[in-house]
């Protein structure tokens, strides 16, 4: 009569051999890219597709030039290809959801009268301090790298004043941009200036080469007009922006607290959004 130990050993050996057979089959099929029964892979026939987005449903965070005015021609009207990837939106879209810190503050001056237990507070002013936006910027292919290079150059450009005899806007400060994101009543056409732009280019990531003159087929993503690589973009970087909401004296004349409370001047009618 077989003892318990030998029975367990034999069962273990059988399970090992059966498991080995199945794992070998799976391994061979996997290495050959085949599926049991010679069934075609579902992934071969599936096609990824972006969901439909328009201005009403696109809630991604963007920083763009204002739609009116001549700034678009200055930044995107030239023959340079550097900003060409940003041309459709006339600005930068954060590819991943960024982290945004938004603050609203009201200042009160403390009036500490003599021999009083409670100081009085006199309202001074309300302020919308800087907005801190931090977002990851992944780069996975040629097209992403072109966009990354364009993004860096765009933010470099919008932190500089108009200078140079060949520019019609010379003497003007850096442009006011529009911050958009998360739909109505959140960031809807908020006029901002970029006070600080920083990007972290890590040492522990790959860098992807690109050339701004190359074009990429939108259907099969093949690179056409391929030229010598001229720029390298990190596969992952962190972009940090500090933007300051800014309203001109003229536009603040149209401010009304009643309209603001009712959401009528939050930028939902293609006007500057008060926050």
């Amino acid at each position: 009569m077989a003892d318990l130990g030998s029975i367990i050993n034999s069962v273990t050996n059988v399970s090992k051999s059966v498991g080995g057979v199945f794992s070998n089959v799976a391994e061979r099929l996997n290495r050959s890219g085949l599926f049991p029964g010679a069934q075609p892979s579902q992934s071969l026939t599936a096609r990824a597709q972006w969901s439909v987005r328009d201005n009403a449903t696109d809630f991604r965070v963007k920083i763009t030039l204002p739609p009116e005015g001549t700034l678009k021609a200055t930044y995107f009207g030239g023959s340079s290809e550097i900003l060409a990837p940003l041309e459709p939106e006339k600005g930068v879209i954060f590819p991943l959801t960024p982290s945004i810190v938004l603050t609203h503050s009201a200042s009160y001056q403390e009036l500490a009268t003599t021999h009083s237990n409670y100081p009085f507070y006199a309202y001074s002013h309300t302020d919308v301090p800087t907005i801190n936006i931090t977002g990851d910027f992944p780069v996975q292919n040629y097209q992403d790298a072109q966009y990354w290079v364009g993004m860096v150059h765009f933010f470099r450009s919008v932190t500089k004043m108009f200078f140079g005899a060949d520019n019609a806007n010379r003497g003007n400060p850096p442009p006011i941009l529009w911050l958009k994101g998360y739909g109505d009543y959140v960031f809807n056409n908020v006029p901002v200036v970029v006070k600080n732009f920083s990007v972290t280019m890590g040492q522990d990531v790959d860098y992807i080469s690109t050339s701004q003159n190359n074009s990429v087929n939108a259907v099969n993503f093949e690179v056409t007009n391929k030229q010598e690589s001229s720029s390298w973009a990190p596969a992952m970087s962190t972009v940090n922006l500090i933007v300051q909401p800014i309203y001109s004296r003229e536009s603040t004349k149209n401010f009304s607290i009643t309209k603001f409370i009712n959401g009528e001047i939050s930028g939902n009618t293609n006007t500057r959004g008060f926050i």
Partner: protein
Amino acid sequence: MAAYSQTSPYYNTPQNKISMDIFVPRAITAELDDVTYTIDRIYAYRPDLLSYDLYGTPRLWWVFAQRNPNRIEDPIYDFYPGNVIQLPKMSNLRSDLGI
């Protein structure tokens, strides 16, 4: 003579008491979405192994030659690495061969 099983290439071939008649091939359905496979070293000259892995039995080793008469003349030695063939689906084999 003994009868051939349904997984045999000779199942449809008539036979008398002492010999087989002229070979009658067994048709296998070809579909547009049949998987295109470039034979690699794992299955080189081993249609039986590929049959076992795909269909669970080595007895269907001959179906690859039957499905790809333009690519495989010798079922064994034309099963060389780099040869591009079409793989019949198990569902079609079931209906075609009655297995």
